[in-house]
């Protein structure tokens, strides 16, 4: 079996002392930022990107990946104990998790979240390993027209699943694509939109945008709100073990959550957040057994399913990145950046040109999940302590790490002035209710899309119908149209709005 050989190779890479250490650091940091509300994987990965320059590429990617899926574990702790989503993907866990904690069942809620995540993480990793090879085969059939259509599908997917107004999300993507145009055009050598500033001819750094918009923008917006009363259920966490009854209800919910999460993770635009929403909605649709606690009042299924789903989604969203080189969400867009820093062009060729990186990363995810369950269940006490760190100590530290991270990317103060500008812009976006995640995705895809469009039209001598006459490209575009039609259907439209109002 080739899969086993590959996995053996991967585990060989992942089990070196150095890589185990970086996997641990990633998972640990991921849990930390997952637990702390107000700082997410996006900002953290952006902050640590410059620091990974010095590392070997495998270690760097293992660590950054650990942060992403680690945050899915940590986020549930905060959701259950403090009634605040530590991470946007645990928004729905708050609903039933916190109620369980209030009923003195914080322990089983944490266990359900942890065990569900672990199971889902293992399945997600297996799916990733199994599907990577065939999808890579498919990817080699892709020409420029297919890539362009795939990106359209990805961007539409991101919009459909974003919260809030559809039109605004599309506008944010286009804005992101335009920001990606700044800098020297590779074909003509013309410095576009550089405003005669020499630093801008290299384009805007995506770390600058990510930190400004997600780091500073979020902090400013958080500080603008009044500090809400935090109620931490430290005393109540006794007895982590769920009862037999709990297990009986949990298991099918975890299975459903895992299946749904894995599927939504692969789809462009999907990922952890949407997976959690969808899984919770599905659980609410199933019938309650007699004697079962209703949803919203502390039902264990309402914790287990979304937590399983967000973790599965976090794992499988690596599939489009690793096989096609196309990031399905903003965190994966940062991973593209991380790979580029190390001179690895993301795409189907990664598997053949850097097999140790490819399979090592996948194997490390399974190991990371194992580390996370240990970090998060027996060691839960540490995280409860950390929840009592006041925000007034936290936010200056975050500002500092952002500033250091931005400066050290190019050792240039110009980036610090730029991040200040994007901090103000980011805050403006939040005030105007324009979600910034699609912008970052557009920014990453902008130059790629232009290049593929240019090549596709060059090959077809300017004939736009090439996107519809090539079957693969046509079906990808049809998928995008289908997605749009589904969201715009009145019944789905109201449901979608409902789902996002719950946070």
């Amino acid at each position, binding site marked *: 079996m080739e899969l086993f050989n590959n996995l053996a190779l991967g585990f060989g890479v992942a089990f070196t002392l150095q890589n185990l250490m970086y996997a641990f650091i990633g998972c640990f940091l991921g849990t930390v930022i997952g637990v702390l509300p107000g700082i997410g994987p996006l900002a953290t990965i952006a902050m640590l990107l410059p620091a990974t320059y010095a590392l070997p590429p495998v270690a760097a990617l293992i660590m950054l990946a650990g942060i992403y899926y680690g945050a899915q574990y940590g986020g549930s702790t905060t959701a259950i104990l403090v009634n605040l989503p530590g991470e946007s993907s645990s928004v729905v866990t708050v609903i039933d998790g916190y109620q369980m904690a209030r009923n003195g069942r914080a322990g089983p809620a944490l266990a359900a979240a942890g065990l569900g995540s672990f199971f889902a993480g293992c399945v997600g990793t297996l799916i990733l390993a199994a599907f990577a090879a065939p999808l890579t085969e498919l990817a080699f059939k892709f020409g420029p027209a297919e890539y362009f259509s795939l990106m359209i599908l990805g961007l539409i997917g991101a919009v459909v699943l974003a919260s809030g107004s559809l039109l605004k999300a599309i506008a944010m993507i*286009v804005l992101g694509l335009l920001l990606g145009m700044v800098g020297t055009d590779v074909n003509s050598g013309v410095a576009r939109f550089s405003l005669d500033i020499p630093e801008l001819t290299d384009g805007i750094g995506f770390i600058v945008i990510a930190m400004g918009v997600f780091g500073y923008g979020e902090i*400013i917006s958080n500080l603008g709100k009044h500090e809400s009363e935090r109620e931490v259920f430290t005393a109540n966490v006794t007895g982590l073990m769920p009862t037999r009854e709990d297990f009986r209800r949990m298991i099918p919910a975890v299975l459903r959550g895992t299946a749904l999460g894995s599927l939504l993770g692969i789809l462009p635009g999907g990922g952890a957040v949407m997976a959690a929403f969808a899984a919770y909605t599905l659980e609410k649709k199933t019938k309650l057994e007699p004697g079962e606690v209703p949803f919203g009042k502390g039902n264990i299924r309402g914790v287990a399913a979304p937590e399983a789903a967000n973790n599965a989604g976090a794992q499988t969203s690596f599939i489009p990145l690793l096989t096609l080189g196309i990031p399905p969400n903003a965190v994966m867009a940062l991973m593209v950046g991380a790979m580029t820093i190390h001179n690895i062009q993301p795409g189907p060729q990664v598997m053949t040109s850097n097999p140790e990186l490819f399979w090592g990363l996948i194997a490390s995810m399974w190991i990371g999940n194992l580390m996370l369950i240990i970090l998060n269940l027996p060691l839960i006490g540490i995280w409860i302590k950390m929840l009592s760190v006041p*925000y007034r100590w936290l*936010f200056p*530290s975050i500002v500092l790490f952002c500033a250091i991270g931005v400066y050290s990317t190019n050792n240039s103060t110009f980036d610090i002035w730029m*991040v200040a500008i994007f901090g*103000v812009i980011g805050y403006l976006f939040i005030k105007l209710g324009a979600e910034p995640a699609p912008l970052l995705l557009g920014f990453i895809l902008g130059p790629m899309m232009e290049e593929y*469009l240019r090549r596709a039209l060059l090959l077809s001598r300017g004939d*736009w119908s090439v996107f519809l006459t090539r079957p693969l490209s046509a079906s990808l575009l049809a998928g995008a149209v289908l997605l749009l039609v589904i969201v715009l259907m009145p019944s789905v439209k109201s449901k979608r709005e409902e789902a996002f109002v719950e946070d």
Partner: protein
Amino acid sequence: MNIKSQKDFFSGLMFMTVGVGFAWGASGYSIGTGARMGPGYFPLALGVLLAVLGGVITFKALVVETVDGDKIGTFAWKPLVFIILANLMFGVMIGGLPSIHLPPMGLIVGIYALTFIASLAGDTFNLKETAVLATILAVMSYLAFIKLLNLQFAVWPVLAGA
């Protein structure tokens, strides 16, 4: 005519302005044709698209009723000013400001400046507590970024001639 959704109205205006700006900028570059796209082709199309989207969003904001008017609310000026200022001061400390002959003051001074200014953004400000926090951050950053990760920073003030 009343604005039904303040947030949408102003974000629509923002998209329109930026879209027109980019389209206008792109029209200055060679556009080319589909088969031979010039550097202005793609940005021009996107700029026009953004302006149109912004127009539709603004129009909808004037027409479609919302429950509470989608008010933007007050701006959190204090955090906005202090966080951005803290970031800028850090840059000045690291890079110096040649126009007023200020030499680079280095990472440690930068960390103290940033921590104190950023802390002013919070609801409460405690001088002693902030000093302790800044010291902890300075020591930790020195160990993590300079010693462990070997990042290239000027750590101490670079005095003229030194």
